[in-house]
């Protein structure tokens, strides 16, 4: 717990260092787009949200260095989108396979689903 607080502090510090832009008074294209769309993006909370997503990735088994690169590769609007959906929108597999097969055998009959080769683990 203490360690994670420490590490998010560290990350916050690092992102503070990184955020200082070269042209403080040029208006970025993304900023103009946001103004145009009248999106009330809470820009101040973005660094905190980045930290939170970083923590989620790390606790999801991604190694720290990779997770940092991955979070850095996201735009502000991606950060907003992902923030609330991090464990809803994963694709690739599921941990409740046994329940699924029972439901699917039924729904295949009803024509609602399509289970195709290779969706699960293994070859």
């Amino acid at each position, binding site marked *: 717990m203490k360690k994670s607080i420490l590490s998010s502090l560290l990350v916050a510090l690092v992102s503070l260092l990184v955020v200082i832009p070269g*042209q*403080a*008074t*040029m*208006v*970025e*294209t*993304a*900023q*103009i*787009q946001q*103004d*145009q769309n009248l999106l009330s993006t809470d820009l101040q909370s973005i660094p905190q949200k980045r930290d939170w997503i970083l923590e989620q*990735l790390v606790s*999801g*088994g*991604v190694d720290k260095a*990779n997770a940092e*690169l*991955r979070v850095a*590769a*996201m*735009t*502000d*609007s*991606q950060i907003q*989108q*992902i923030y609330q959906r*991090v*464990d809803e*929108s*994963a*694709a*690739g*597999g*599921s941990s*409740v396979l046994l*329940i*699924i*097969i029972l*439901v*699917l*055998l039924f*729904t*295949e*009959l*009803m*024509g*609602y*689903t*399509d*289970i*195709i*080769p*290779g*969706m*699960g*683990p*293994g*070859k």
Partner: protein
Amino acid sequence: MKQFPEYACRWAGVFLLVALTGACATSPQARLLVDNPPDIRQRVELTEVPFFPQLDFYCGPSSLASIISYRGTAVDPEQIAPLIYVPELKGSLQTEVISATRRFDLLPVLLDGKLESIVREIDAGNPVFVLQNLGLDSIPVWHYEVVVGYDFDERMVILRSGVNKRVLRSFALFEKTWQRADYWALAITSADSIPVTASEDAYVTTAIDMEQVGSTRTAHRAYLTALQRWPDSLLAHIGAGNTAYQLGDYTAAQRAYGIALEIDPDKAEIWNNLSYALAQMDMHENSMAAIERALQLDPDNQNFRDSYRELSIWE
């Protein structure tokens, strides 16, 4: 345990026939597509799209590697996985697929959720990266696939999927499983082209995102590409100007801002940015005139005030 999916597949093979019969009633897009086919070829298969059989839960990395390789950068799923895979989720997030694509200087352009758009993209030579929910809304089984072909005679799409290089699925069934994934689809192209069905907003936003993550050169190319199709796109002109400025081409920046101001003379931000381009070109008086215009339009803007101060003492 590793036998499990094959078990599921075998049953699926049997039941697929049943599934197909009642499918059309609840697949409005598929029906529309068959009744009113767009003016494209009857059958297309992009056979040259590479195939990487999925290992474990790597459907995201496999599918992405497939399209990125098709676009000319040799990668395999093992190189993609560290960019998008989340071990605990046994999967990859859509948004990370998007940011990983950008790292290869390719544009991940969101399509509009129409089945017709997918086949149009295929006809234009663009494989489409899709998310499918092969389960149910309540018990989702997420799966990434690549659409590489279609056949109007058979009413089928052709997919690179999981461990299968070539999967055929009816338009109707594809629509259902795609609908359960909110019709999420990406066309992935270089900055020199635009997916045929992409909206101005989707494409320009992709370029803006590219700029935001620091791929300035690619973003600049994408803005110029966008302007060929949408010459009146205000944001594309502004983006072209901003990226030109960042690349040190102040003349090009000035020109782009000039066109943007013809479209919207009251956009104060453009006057602000123009003032910097002019300052860089040692046109001090014009630069001050531009920033004064910005302040006239929006006197309380702190950014413009800072600009004014900075430009007043510009060396």
